[in-house]
């Protein structure tokens, strides 16, 4: 397998929490971003999510499906793994606080493929850069506004609705039962006859 890496950096006038909110706010994807359509959510829980996404590749205008697992790796880093028809990718979004109202957003895209796919890596790099720039611009107005909301002591926030069906548009999910799955945090995976707690 061959791998390649590309790092895209952008700076925005808001606190890291606003950028993190934007990254996890999946409700905005199909509303704000032209390239996304309604995702199919398979698993959701605080800090991790598995979904099938459909999006258009820039320039080529080709619609593809991708399975994405996204998780909050640490307080300042979100990691996603994507399986696309072209390659397997990992992307990390790292938030670097520059001052009290400025954040650098460093997105590292890593992708791997076989020797044939490797020939297309330069094209992937070009498309990913373009993709990152487009998505960044589309999101920018949300981040600036959200920062203003925070500064103005916005207190009307009601949180996410309790029921998943009220939280996401699940109209496309009719063909599979009991999804998205909620992660059950009550399960103790080590609880078996041979397990001994140290």
């Amino acid at each position, binding site marked *: 397998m061959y791998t390649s890496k590309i790092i895209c950096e952008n700076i925005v006038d808001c606190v890291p929490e606003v950028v993190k*909110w934007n990254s996890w*706010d999946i*409700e*905005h994807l199909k*509303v*704000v971003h032209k390239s996304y359509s309604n995702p199919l959510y398979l698993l959701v829980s605080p800090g991790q999510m598995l979904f099938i996404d459909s999006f258009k590749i820039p320039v080529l205008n080709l619609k593809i499906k991708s399975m994405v697992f996204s998780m909050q790796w640490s307080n300042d880093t979100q990691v996603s793994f994507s399986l696309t028809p072209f390659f397997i990718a990992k992307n990390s979004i790292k938030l670097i606080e520059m001052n009290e109202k400025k954040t650098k957003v460093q997105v590292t895209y890593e992708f791997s493929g076989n020797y044939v796919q490797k020939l297309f890596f330069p094209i992937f790099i070009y498309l990913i850069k373009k993709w990152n720039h487009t998505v960044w611009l589309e999101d920018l107005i*949300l981040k600036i*506004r*959200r920062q*203003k*909301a*925070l*500064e*103005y*002591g*916005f207190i*009307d*926030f*009601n949180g996410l*609705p309790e029921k998943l069906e*009220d939280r996401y548009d699940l109209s496309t999910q009719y063909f599979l039962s009991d999804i998205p799955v909620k992660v059950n945090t009550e399960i103790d995976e080590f609880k078996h006859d041979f397990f001994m707690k140290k």
Partner: protein
Amino acid sequence: MKQIEILKTDLPGKSSFKYFDFPKYKIEFLVYLSSDSNILVYSSFCPHYGGKLSISNNTLLCHFHDYKFNLNSGVCINKKNGLKCTSFYFLETDNSIIIPLE
């Protein structure tokens, strides 16, 4: 009591809206003047996530997540969450509207 005065000469034209930002008080209003000269005053912040509300086809809209609210009641009309936009009471004088802040 704190209050904010907006001159009637600054109000939007009929069937349109205008934003009034008051950073000192950390408040931004969306003021709408209907075709029959009714004035509505809302916080410009969507009650969902704080997106900037606008008005189109007699409906309050938030472009963050495509939330829609009844223009007169402020109640969300396209999601089942019971959210309601924050409206403000005001006093009307000959030359201005006065919005008391608690």
